[in-house]
């Protein structure tokens, strides 16, 4: 009953990139094919809250049943999502747990758990002491900042000998842009020569930071834990520039979004422990409007061959 025929608008932060393309093609379209729904995607080519808002407004005005949205800047899209809800449109978000005007928000997992796991992996790799560099794709991204903050919290809590390199400052923003993140990473690696580990939550930026580490000859010195897609980072995982890739299939998350929307449409209330029928969401946690999955994949040189997305 989680397969309903609906008209779905998928509104990513930006169109075209590997991540959101996977979400749409490997998730929304898959669901649409299974359920007989119609779907389209619409979004800016550059990450910009204003441009995304306009896509929301057009989708609302044109009339759709479901909006599946990955907000670029949650605070700034909320008002427009409110209008969608007033119109009776079902709104499901991803990585937008702070949103108010939604039916459900889908999170692949708990930010704190995810961050803690990343912190553990980093600590393990660096012998539980030294400095770490924490990047974020954009300071505006709740998820990125959430994970980064969770790492810091976990470090202060469990690993007193580990410190964040750019003390006192905020996380280093890499801009969700490969060229920019490459330059930023190079700069950061030089500025903090004592760094022993780093973390990157932006799938766009993960490979180019890996390249910067590799070129600086730090492949073995630095424990690099990152978020990304295995296909995009395969070479770096294999040569050890990326030590641990924390990954989940965006397509599966998108499918979970559609299924949650179907539940709303049929009037079924989702409860903790329900099964959405997608990997990672077989036993969901529901808190208020936030649906959290439970699993992600830890990809290393050993198991990278098993994944293809």
């Amino acid at each position, binding site marked *: 009953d989680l397969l309903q025929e609906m008209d779905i608008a998928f509104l990513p932060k930006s169109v075209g990139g590997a991540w959101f393309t996977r979400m749409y093609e490997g998730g929304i379209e898959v669901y649409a094919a299974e359920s007989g729904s119609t779907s389209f995607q619409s979004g800016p080519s550059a990450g910009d809250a*204003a441009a995304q808002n306009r896509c929301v407004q057009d989708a609302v005005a044109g*009339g759709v049943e479901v909006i599946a949205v990955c907000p670029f800047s949650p*605070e700034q899209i909320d008002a427009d999502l409110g209008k969608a809800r007033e119109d009776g449109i079902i709104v499901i978000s991803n990585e937008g747990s702070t949103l108010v005007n939604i039916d459900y928000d889908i999170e692949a997992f708990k930010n704190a758990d995810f961050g803690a796991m990343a912190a553990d992996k980093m600590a393990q790799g660096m012998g539980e002491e030294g400095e770490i560099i924490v990047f974020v794709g*954009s300071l505006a991204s709740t998820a990125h900042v959430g994970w980064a903050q969770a790492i810091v919290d976990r470090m202060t809590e469990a690993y007193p000998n580990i410190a964040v390199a750019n003390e006192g400052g905020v996380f280093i923003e890499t801009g969700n842009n490969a060229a920019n993140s490459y330059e930023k990473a190079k700069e950061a690696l030089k500025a903090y020569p004592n760094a022993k580990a780093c973390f990157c939550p932006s799938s766009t930026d993960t490979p180019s930071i890996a390249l910067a580490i590799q070129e600086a000859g730090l492949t073995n010195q630095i424990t690099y834990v990152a978020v990304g897609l295995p296909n995009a980072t395969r070479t770096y995982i294999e040569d050890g520039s990326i030590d641990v890739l924390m990954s989940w299939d965006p397509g599966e998350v998108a499918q979970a979004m559609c299924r949650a929307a179907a539940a709303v449409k049929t009037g079924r209330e989702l409860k903790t422990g329900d099964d959405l029928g997608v990997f990672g969401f077989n036993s969901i946690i529901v808190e208020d409007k936030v649906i959290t999955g439970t699993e992600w994949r830890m990809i290393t040189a050993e198991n990278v061959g098993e994944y293809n997305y």
Partner: protein
Amino acid sequence: MKTTTKRLLRRIDRKTVQLLLLAVVLFVVMIILKGDKFLRAKNIESMLFQLVEPGLFAMCIGLAYLSKGIDLSVVTIANLVGVVNGIMLRTCLAPDGSNVGMLLALCVVIAVGVGLTCGIINAFFISNIGIFPILVTLGTQNLFMGIAMMLTQGRAEGNFPQPLMDFGNAMVGPIPLLTLLFLLLYALMCVVVHRTPYGRKLQWMGSNSKVTWYTGINNRRITYVTYILSGLLAALAGLVIMARTNSAKADYGSTYVFQALLTCVLAGISPLGGTGKYYNLILSIITIQITSTGFNLLRISPLIRDSIFGILLVLSIFIDYVSQTQRTRRLNRAAIRQLQQAGEKEAVE
């Protein structure tokens, strides 16, 4: 009777006709392709809402263009206004909301202050130091955004008081209040540009600053007024963004700058200064809005949608070119014919 129509026709700009035609054609095409959705009250309302922000920015850039300058800093001025106001509201708002009215008034004051200051900074570097506007505003764009970043550490300010939201979403009949205010402001700016001494001088300075200098017109003052007006309009856009999105952030609307540049060019306002009619701006804003919403409704791939500006521009340029060459060719042919006739007559005599 006939002469008055003729005179009226003479005063209508060619660009106006072209843009009107373009807008009407696009409108009709949309109705044919997707009339049910396009004509929905909801959609029209949404379009009216949407054109306010880019419209305001286009108004800023249009002014700068007329003066043979450019103002790349407008969007960051708007965000700076939003951020400063956001911080002010966050810190000053009483828990019971008793001082909302005063604070909202203060928001306006802050907006005016920020817009004025930013405009003066731009004008100072352009006029007193003599740097090219594009360089100056590129610098101040970074500067203003940097200040907003420093104030917020890149985070969004949000959760503004309800009256502001109500204002942002209010309707006057079928028309959003903000759109109505925007149109009024636009009409006012048209009057300023086309009918006040300042507006005339602005266009003259844009077309030839040396001549205005030799005419005793104070170029420096015109430059100041222009960039201050631009800053103030941008500051208003900042308030609009606050009211519409219930938030403010240092990097909101980075795509607006290019959109505004293109809107002005489509309206025939040349970045090379002096030429173009400010009143055409609204037509260009509407044309772009119809196209952008239309493409969304038609579910045309978002990937190609970004190039609509380019396509519209090249289209309008092409129409311009063809009509121009046709006209010249026709006139030349007529002149030659006249010449030959005159020759024949002489021969007869």
